[in-house]
């Protein structure tokens, strides 16, 4: 990965391709690289859908190697949803393939002068860009099928659906999985709208003829990977819970804690949650698909295998195993307790290219605004179809919860910096509220996800009874997460890294033996801080201020049952998160 592919979509005479050396960006990967390029090259005050914004697609530092779990892809730009910097993250095959083709990043620049739609083929021979308006307003599934017919089954695709073409702020970018289905998404922040604005429908990646990336010290790398895999497999979360139930294993637990946002964040518990729990979902998937249907990886080299295959009642493929956040967003948050309906909504989101969290939160806001009744699954499906069809109502909904709340006069709109909160009520788990409020990304649970912060030496010793401890924890988690996002590692590695010092060491050894470095935990911390500093400075220059680092007012006023608590962290404490 020693080059950056730059494609100027607005060049005279059609898209112009240039390959640059890494230069100042050498050593960066994943979120580290996307945020570095965006913060350095994108004018903070530009329009997110304008020619000056750039869409940066970057594999992680270890993507394309044999390191297990290294297949995450980062997508960065100025977000049309938040107005700030964005890094959205996806699994699937493209990251590994781009890494093997040697690209540290693809940067889409400029903007076509007409409404032409392009497909881009990247292979060992270079880059081929063709106008293909037959792809116009196709869903992701049909788009990928067309690419499969043209280029065979050994490709991977990065694509947008109708939502991205319509430049809706809830639009995602799809990445294909091992079965060449567009099921993995860089979901958050409207990155799909930016790809749509660049006029790019699909990027086809063909790694034929390429080999695994080779480490500087192959023996040490092999040894480190062995220890890494052993550490991941022996831990009960990555080795047992996630493979057995997927991320939806969280439904029962978050619900029991009273932190499961229900019916647009009105309650902390959903009475029928056991109907949509991970336990129920896994049983249903195995009953329809046979043993093992609930355990599947999203890319080659994934050994946690937290995904699965969801068949419909007739035994036909419907979608991948919906994630916890999706089941929550379209399920409990909308009062819906029907797994088949939720899976149908997941399929529609994937096909239209929509962020499932944003769409579920938006429909719940619309339900509170009287557009449909809570619990009405058919109405929810119809609303998502309106988005895909681009009706006026659909375009409102596809623009996200904040816009929808304004249109329908709803006060209870659970967003920060315009982005919907995920599946954990910040009144129940106050510490995550600190992260929702202060992260550079808008409300985002994955921004402070890397629970390995204490192992990295940035956790410190926190008094659990003092509110300021939550500020320190959130800060350290955000630093650690930014660093992990740069590696291309799936965030689910965090638990074994937290509990098993030797597994954290194995991760460092992987990086060091691959790049010939001698990174320590302090260096990783410094990397996380530098990424956050880039992002924070971009946001400040884009006009975001401390007032944007706040939860909506109602979280401080409305008590959340069953614990009957409000969000208690003070504004002045929130302002200390980035004081390091």
């Amino acid at each position, binding site marked *: 990965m020693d080059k950056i592919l730059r494609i100027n979509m607005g060049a005279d005479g059609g898209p112009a391709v240039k390959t640059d050396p890494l230069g100042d960006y050498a050593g960066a990967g994943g979120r580290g690289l996307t945020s570095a390029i965006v913060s350095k090259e994108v004018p903070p005050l530009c329009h997110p859908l304008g020619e000056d914004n750039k869409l940066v697609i970057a594999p992680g530092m270890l993507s394309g190697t044999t390191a297990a779990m290294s297949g995450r892809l980062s997508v960065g730009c100025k977000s049309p949803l938040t107005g700030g910097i964005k890094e959205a993250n996806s699994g699937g095959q493209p990251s590994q393939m781009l890494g093997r083709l040697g690209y540290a990043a693809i940067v889409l620049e400029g903007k076509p002068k007409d409404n032409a739609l392009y497909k881009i083929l990247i292979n060992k021979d270079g880059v081929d860009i063709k106008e293909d308006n037959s792809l116009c307003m196709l869903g992701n599934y049909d788009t990928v099928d067309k690419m499969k017919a043209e280029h065979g089954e050994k490709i991977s695709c990065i694509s947008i659906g109708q939502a991205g073409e319509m430049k809706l702020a809830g639009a995602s970018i799809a990445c294909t999985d091992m079965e060449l289905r567009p099921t993995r998404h860089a979901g958050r922040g409207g990155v799909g709208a930016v790809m749509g604005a660049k006029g790019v429908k699909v990027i086809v990646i063909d790694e034929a003829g390429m080999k695994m990336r080779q480490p500087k010290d192959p023996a040490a790398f092999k040894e480190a990977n062995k220890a890494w895999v052993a550490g991941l497999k022996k831990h*009960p*979360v*990555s080795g*047992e*819970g*996630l493979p*057995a*139930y997927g*991320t939806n*294993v*969280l439904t*029962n*637990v*978050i619900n*029991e*804690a*009273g*932190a499961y946002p229900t019916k647009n964040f009105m309650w902390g*518990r959903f009475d029928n949650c*056991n109907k949509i*729990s*991970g*336990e*129920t979902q896994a*049983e249903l998937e195995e009953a329809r698909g046979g043993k093992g249907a609930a355990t599947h990886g999203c890319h080659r080299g994934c050994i946690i295998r*937290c995904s699965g295959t969801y068949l419909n009642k007739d035994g036909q493929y419907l979608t991948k195993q919906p994630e916890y956040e999706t089941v929550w967003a379209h399920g409990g948050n909308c009062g819906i307790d029907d797994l088949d309906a939720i899976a149908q909504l997941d399929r529609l989101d994937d096909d239209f290219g929509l962020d499932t969290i944003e769409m579920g939160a938006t429909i719940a806001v619309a339900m509170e605004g009287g557009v449909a009744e809570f619990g009405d699954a058919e109405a929810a499906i119809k609303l998502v179809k309106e988005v895909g069809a681009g009706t006026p109502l659909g375009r409102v909904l596809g623009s996200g919860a904040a816009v929808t709340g304004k249109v329908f006069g709803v006060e209870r709109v659970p967003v920060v910096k315009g982005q919907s909160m995920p599946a*954990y009520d910040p*009144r*129940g*788990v*106050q*510490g*995550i509220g*600190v*992260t929702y409020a202060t992260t550079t990304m808008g409300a985002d*649970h994955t921004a*402070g*996800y890397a*629970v390995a912060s*204490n192992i990295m030496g940035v*956790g410190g010793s*926190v*008094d*659990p*009874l*003092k509110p300021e*401890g*939550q500020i320190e*924890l*959130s800060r350290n*988690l955000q630093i650690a997460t930014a660093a992990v996002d740069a590696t291309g590692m799936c*965030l*689910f590695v*965090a*638990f074994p890294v*937290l509990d098993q010092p030797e597994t954290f060491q194995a991760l460092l050894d992987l990086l060091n033996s691959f790049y010939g470095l001698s990174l320590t935990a302090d260096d990783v911390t410094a990397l996380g801080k530098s990424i956050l500093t880039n992002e924070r400075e971009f946001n400040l220059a884009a006009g975001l201020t401390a007032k944007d680092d706040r939860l909506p007012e109602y979280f401080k006023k409305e008590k959340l049952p*069953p*614990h009957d*608590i409000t969000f*208690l962290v003070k504004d002045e404490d929130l302002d200390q998160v980035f004081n390091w």
Partner: protein
Amino acid sequence: MKIYIVITTELLPRFFKLLEQGFIVTTQAGCSIKNLLCKQLGIEEAYLDKRIQTLFLDGKPVDKVEKAYLHNDATLALSGAMPGLVGATLRKGGAFAAMRNTISYSDEASVNANGKARVTLKLFNMVLKELGPVFLKSGIWIDRHNFSDFISHNLEDLKPACESVDLNDQKIDVAALAEMNWDDTELFLKVTTEASS
């Protein structure tokens, strides 16, 4: 009412749904979680320490199982270690417990230690998979509505899988369970994969 079902190994996990929804155990009010689980229900201390990583008493995350006390009508939920930040946050005595301190179980909570306590016990995820067969074999008290719903939703799959069904020691057909009007609020259910003597 006492129900005893012998079922094929493949379909035994189907009954886990009832344990996920919760079943009743009776103990002395004021008894600690550790006492209930280890002394009364026979769960090994090592299992409690290592495998039951997340516990909720009345929805409050518990950090010290020996200092969390049960009262009448309490609900106790048991889970393995959970993924993600919030999973880590809710974990027993975890490094991130500060992030949910407003809902944590407090040691100072006072409990009336007089009389018996009926506790609803819920099992989730890996704990459900591992302890479920044990509890089903020894028998559980469950809500009749939960049982009725369960039977009616699963009847077609249960029919070929049930080797025998006893209701108060009388053999009946599993289909008859679906048509029963239960008088008792709670039913005692035993499910095994092989008939016991």
